[in-house]
């Protein structure tokens, strides 16, 4: 057993930390959050030049030939930096899905453009029920000669307003309500009939409502197998949940570090508040939660990376991370006192993101059910 990062991963981590610290101080994060675009095209290009978009893509598609585990390291740093923008959407939701399910032709067409930073991708999965089950998919795709026509509404689609392409999960067999008859499409996000509304969210990320009204999609844009898309969707959810966990590790690690620093600095009753035993125990609880999240997250990321089956490990990681984040942020606030509940303090960026991450791609109840199934209950 070896729980350490490789030398290469340590280097990647350090490079990412330096770059993100330099480019994304919280003043910049705030500006980007408040902007309509929700990302900085300039930094986007720089990240592409660093090879981050294609990090986990094969070299033949312009990628860096690194693994999902390597990507995990980078995502952790992005969580730590509260990086705003469509990196996650493009790389995790878009790129890795096409790599996994795309035809050779599709890979050749889309992956190099993702790796170069040329295109932005996202995934349109959830609908009004806001659930991650097959029954939730009501958006319809009906055939029309050599095309499909999409109709329906997707909710909570990240970065749809700036995306070039969307992977859209739709029902191609009207008779079925379950896992059968679901297909994933690669859709040009600027197609006629698509409209967006950016929702206002706690993380100030750009989650959108996307309405498809008679949207025409060429037949060759089916990703993976017709009517058999749900198993790929499950893989997407699994992969994305782990990727979210990586960001969450970064998020709570940073909240912990800030809090411990503050507990050493802040004095009340003529002593650092970190010398009060209750504060020490809080910090001890926090670091235990952070480490539990880190270990379970990296275990799942490693297994995914190795191509091992890891349904239970992923479920454990995300169920744990969601709630651990809440506990860590609650204690971080408690220790920071009033200064931490101001908008000008960095802590609130983490508080807001931790909440969004908790509910995205399956909350603890969702994954507890999966664990229960794994236990054969």
């Amino acid at each position, binding site marked *: 057993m070896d729980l350490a990062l490789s030398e290469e991963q340590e280097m990647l981590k350090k490079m990412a930390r330096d770059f993100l610290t330099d480019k994304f101080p919280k003043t910049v994060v705030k500006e980007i959050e408040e902007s309509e675009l929700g990302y900085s095209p300039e930094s986007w290009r720089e990240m592409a030049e660093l090879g981050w978009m294609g990090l986990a893509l094969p070299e033949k598609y312009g990628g860096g030939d690194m693994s999902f585990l390597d990507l995990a390291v980078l995502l952790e740093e992005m969580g730590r930096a509260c990086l705003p923008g469509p990196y996650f959407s493009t790389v995790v939701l878009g790129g890795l899905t096409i790599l996994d399910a795309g035809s050779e032709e599709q890979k050749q067409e889309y992956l190099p453009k993702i790796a170069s930073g040329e295109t932005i991708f996202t995934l349109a999965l*959830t609908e009004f*029920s*806001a*659930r991650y089950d097959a*029954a939730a998919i009501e958006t319809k795709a009906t055939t029309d000669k050599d095309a499909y026509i999409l109709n329906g509404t997707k*909710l*909570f689609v990240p970065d749809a307003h700036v995306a070039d392409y969307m992977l859209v999960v739709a029902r191609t067999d009207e008779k079925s309500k379950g896992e059968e008859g679901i297909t994933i499409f690669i859709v040009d996000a600027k197609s006629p009939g698509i409209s967006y*509304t950016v*929702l*206002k*969210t*706690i*993380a100030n990320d750009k*989650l959108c*409502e996307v309405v498809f009204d008679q949207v025409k999609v060429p037949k060759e844009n089916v990703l993976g197998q017709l009517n058999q898309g749900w198993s790929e969707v499950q893989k997407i959810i699994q992969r994305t949940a782990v990727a979210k966990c990586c960001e969450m590790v970064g998020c709570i690690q940073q909240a912990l570090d800030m809090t411990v620093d503050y507990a050493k600095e802040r*004095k*009340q*009753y*003529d002593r650092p508040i970190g010398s*009060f035993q*209750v*504060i020490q125990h809080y910090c001890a609880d926090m670091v235990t939660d952070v480490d539990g999240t880190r270990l379970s997250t990296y275990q799942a990321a490693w297994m995914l990376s190795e191509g091992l089956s890891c349904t239970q490990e992923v479920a454990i990681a995300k169920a744990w991370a969601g709630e651990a984040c*809440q506990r860590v942020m*609650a204690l971080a*606030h*408690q220790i920071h*006192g*009033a200064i*931490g*509940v*101001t*908008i*000008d303090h960095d802590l*609130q960026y983490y*508080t*807001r993101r931790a*909440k*969004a991450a*908790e*509910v*995205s791609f399956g*909350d*603890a*109840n969702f994954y507890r059910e999966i664990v229960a199934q794994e236990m054969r209950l």
Partner: protein
Amino acid sequence: MDFRLSEEQEKFRQEVRDFLEGEIKQGLWQPSCDAWIMGHDPEFTKRVSQRGWIGLTWPKEYGGQGRSFVDRLILTEEMLRYGAPAACHWFADRQIGGAIVHYGTEEQRKELLPKILKGEAYVGLGMSEPDAGSDLASLKTKAVGDGDYYVIDGQKTWTSGGSRMNWIYLVARTDPDAPKHRGISEFIIDASLPGIAVQPIVDITGGVHFNEVFFENVRIPKKCLIGEENRGFYQVLNQLDYERSGMERLMANYPLFKALIQYTKETKRNGKPLSEEPVIRSKLAQLKIELEIGRLHMYRVAVVMDEGRAPNWESSMSKAYGTAFEQRLANTAIEILGLYGQLSPQSKWVPVQGMAYHSYLSSKGYSLQAGTSEILKNILALRKLGLPTG
């Protein structure tokens, strides 16, 4: 033993409910979370005052109603249940009036109490400073005697409602040479005096609620001193017991609880209302259990006050308990709302008017303001349980 309220008290509760429901029906305001501290509505406060519902517990000779603290709790409980905008008078009614009755001179009572009763005293609490939070006694803002005046210099922070206040209840150092607890005095001053500057602080919800208040060479008449010079800290401790005592530490987000229950009845999953799902039922029922336990704590505090004791460890217990409950309520609400829970009040598709979002962020401060939960538990451990100090 008798856990019942009297018939008059039940009638009083009904009267308050009728009043509040009537107000809502007329469209005068909408129920909201945190309305006791953020809902500033001078007209509402006037109407409450006209009913004699400010100063309910004060002696009749000072214009109060001489009623019990349990009566006041019934009143405030209903205000919170309906999310009524009572922020203009809440602080003055809760603690400042009582402090004046208790520690003030006859002249101060005659001058100040009628203004509170009329709902015209919007008081900001000027206690905390950047370096004096939990350790309030280390405060540095000074009040230096100069003939018939004191001259105030220094800074307060986190002053709730500071941008609306017309009075400041100020705690300042009057004897720099005495041990820190013994050189502090309390004042009530006019917030519009020259030399006072209020700077709003945007809080984590994005709202403006608390403020920095700067004092530069502010001259206040000596008659602003409340109680004994240099004994202020002991008066403050007593006042804090009252500040912590109320139902606002349990039910500030009651409108969210109500809306959440309604939401689970109206929202269907797989053809069935959420409220029929065992997991959701269990979660909502647990909140209800926790709320009812909290109410018992709160009523106990009021009974203690009616017995003529300051509710010291009792209000520490109820406040720490109640604020933790409110944080769980916000978390459970978002859990039930799922992805929708992250939508802000201004967003399309936001459920329960965004109250879950607001409460989640806002409740982070509940366990800090008016004494952090750690300080409150220290009080419990020392004063209630008699544990030794370190």
